[in-house]
């Protein structure tokens, strides 16, 4: 009945597209600002400021070194226990932080989302990017210790896989985003998932070789551990920097594949709830 054409049409159906990249790019300034806001407000009016970012993985590492390394003997021979655990916990701190924050996206930002439209994916994306700033600080700390151990010569064997590091971090970030938006989409309906996620993340950590080395996993079970998409990333990272373990390229490929599948599932679920979650949250 009408000849007019409209730029925007809103109805009850979900968007045809799984991902509207053009729109996200239009809102890139908002993403930047959210990243900045998260980081700035996190540390404004604290005594130690961004130093807090270092304290958490450092403490975890010290505890791992004392408990798992020295008492239980779960670390590998040949490299300093401390740097071995530090490599793992820096990665895990990022992954768990990004995952938890993403999963809380809707609940934490309901007050903004209830008032104004912007592409909902902006929020989880900027969360994952924002956590990268803390990660960068932690990574610099890691490099500091790493260089120290290199200089005193303690059996570290870095190799060319080091060049893969940015890709590994990207992989980890995408994985956190994918799992995060799946949980986020489900929490709009089931709020109790938010409680479950806290111990879910802890269990996941023990299923990943953070507090131990792959050496202690029985030979026959290695494949099972490696199917955990985080594991090959951690193993590869340690191999590149420390020279322990092995380059698990095949499992890394499988992990990339499962990350892609999780991402598709995440985008689908997220797209299904993003239009109406304000009515239920």
């Amino acid at each position, binding site marked *: 009945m*009408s000849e*007019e054409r*409209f*730029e*925007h*049409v*809103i*109805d*009850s159906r979900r968007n045809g597209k799984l991902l509207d990249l053009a729109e996200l790019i*239009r*809102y890139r*300034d*908002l993403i*930047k*600002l959210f990243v900045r*806001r998260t980081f*700035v*407000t996190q540390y*404004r*009016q604290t005594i130690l400021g961004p130093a807090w970012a270092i304290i958490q993985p450092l403490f975890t590492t010290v505890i791992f070194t004392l408990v798992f390394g020295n008492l239980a003997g779960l670390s590998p021979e040949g490299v300093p226990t401390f740097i071995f655990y530090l490599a793992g916990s820096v990665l895990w701190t990022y992954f768990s932080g990004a995952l938890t924050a993403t999963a809380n996206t809707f609940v934490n930002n309901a*007050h*903004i*989302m*209830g*008032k*104004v*439209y*912007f592409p909902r994916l902006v929020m989880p994306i900027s969360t994952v990017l924002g956590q990268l700033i803390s990660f960068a600080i932690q990574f610099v700390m890691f490099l500091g210790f790493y260089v120290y151990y290199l200089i005193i010569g303690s059996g570290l064997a870095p190799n060319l896989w080091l060049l893969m590091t940015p890709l590994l971090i990207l992989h980890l970030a995408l994985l956190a985003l994918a799992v995060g938006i799946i949980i986020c989409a489900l*929490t*709009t*309906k*089931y*709020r*109790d*998932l938010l409680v479950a996620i806290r111990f879910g993340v802890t269990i996941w950590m023990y299923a990943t070789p953070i507090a131990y080395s792959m050496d202690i996993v029985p030979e026959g079970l290695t494949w099972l551990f490696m199917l955990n998409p985080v594991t090959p990333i951690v193993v590869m990272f340690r191999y590149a920097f420390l020279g322990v373990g092995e380059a698990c390229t095949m499992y890394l490929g499988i992990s990339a594949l499962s990350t892609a599948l999780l991402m598709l599932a995440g985008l689908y679920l997220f797209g299904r709830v993003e*239009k*109406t979650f*304000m*009515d*239920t*949250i």
Partner: protein
Amino acid sequence: MSETVIRFDNVSKEYRRGQIGGGTLREDLADWMEKRSRGDDAHKSGDRFLALEGVSFTVKRGEALGIIGQNGAGKSTLLKLLSRVSAPTSGTISFNGRVASMLEVGTGFHRELTGRENIYMNGAILGMSKREIDAKFQQILEFSEIGEFIDTPVKRYSSGMYVKLAFSVMAHLDCEIMIMDEVLAVGDMAFQKKCIERMAGASKDDGRTLLYVSHNMNTIRQLCDRCIVLDKGHILYDGDVEKAISIYMQNMSESRLSYDYRNYVRNCGSWEHKIAIDSLEVLERDNVVLKAGETLKFRISARALRDVPAMKLRLQVASIDGVVVGTAFSDRDVSVREGVSFTAELKFSACGLSCGSYTCVLAAFEYNSVGETRRIDYIEDALRFEVEDKELSWDRNVFGYVKLTPLVVDSLEVEGRLS
């Protein structure tokens, strides 16, 4: 001028009654089991209600459209749908251009950030790029009258400054469609006037389209050139502003003796909904026309959604055209535990109010030992009544809304008395 920018086509929106909030997995499983054992979905249908039903209209470029209606008529729902915060249950909404919505003052303001940072933040949320905001920054700053405080965190701002800054960002956005939900009710008078002029200018000179929801008929008159009256989710009237206002007033002055707020959608952005006032019933009379000095007795029933150690009620009385006249506070406080239902009988004296129709906001608030108060429930247009005064004719525009205590004539000496 004749180009259509917004089209609502048979739009309906359904909400679930009662508890609006995510269920838990256990509840859903229990629901599912129940459904299976009963084999039907009947128990669910009663929980739903339509906030909008089959609404259709179009808006042309440059029009300033007012939307008025009673509580629960669907005004806010309509704006929410257009600003894409929520999606319609059925029907389609089409529009051209960017929509800047201001459903609440200071959307996205973060307390820890400075005014400057918040301008960028808020602009970006509303869809502007950094470059566009750069270009407008000086204008925004000047309009807001914030001056040197621009680099102070907004948590140190007074509420007036906060509102000014928020409105300034909104008013300077490059957008084709502006949506406002009664934001002008805040700020000082001079600034309100400035805002109205700015918005009127935006629609008349810049050809922007404006949708404005208000209970204040005066601002509707000043701003809008067309008006829609909504009633229970339907469009009652669409057209001339004065006609719309008179229909609305007529609709408003129907006296009711009992009110049910269970379907009322609270607009709680900045406060926590801890008490749900469910109903109000006028007692001991069959009309709500009060003679000067008479008392209105009513009973409310409510539920506590959270523990509240100390709460009171207040009744904010406004004249029917939206001017707030005064507020009555309950003289006793009450403490309630989560999950408890309670009723209260209250007496309100219309003493001092001049004749005319009034509408009240019923609010519950909690307070602590240092006197901080926070609202925990807020129902606009919760109760209506009329005051009748046969003695004198009363012209509100000249006399105001309150009849002060009489001017007592202490002594009188007249020289040439007319007899």
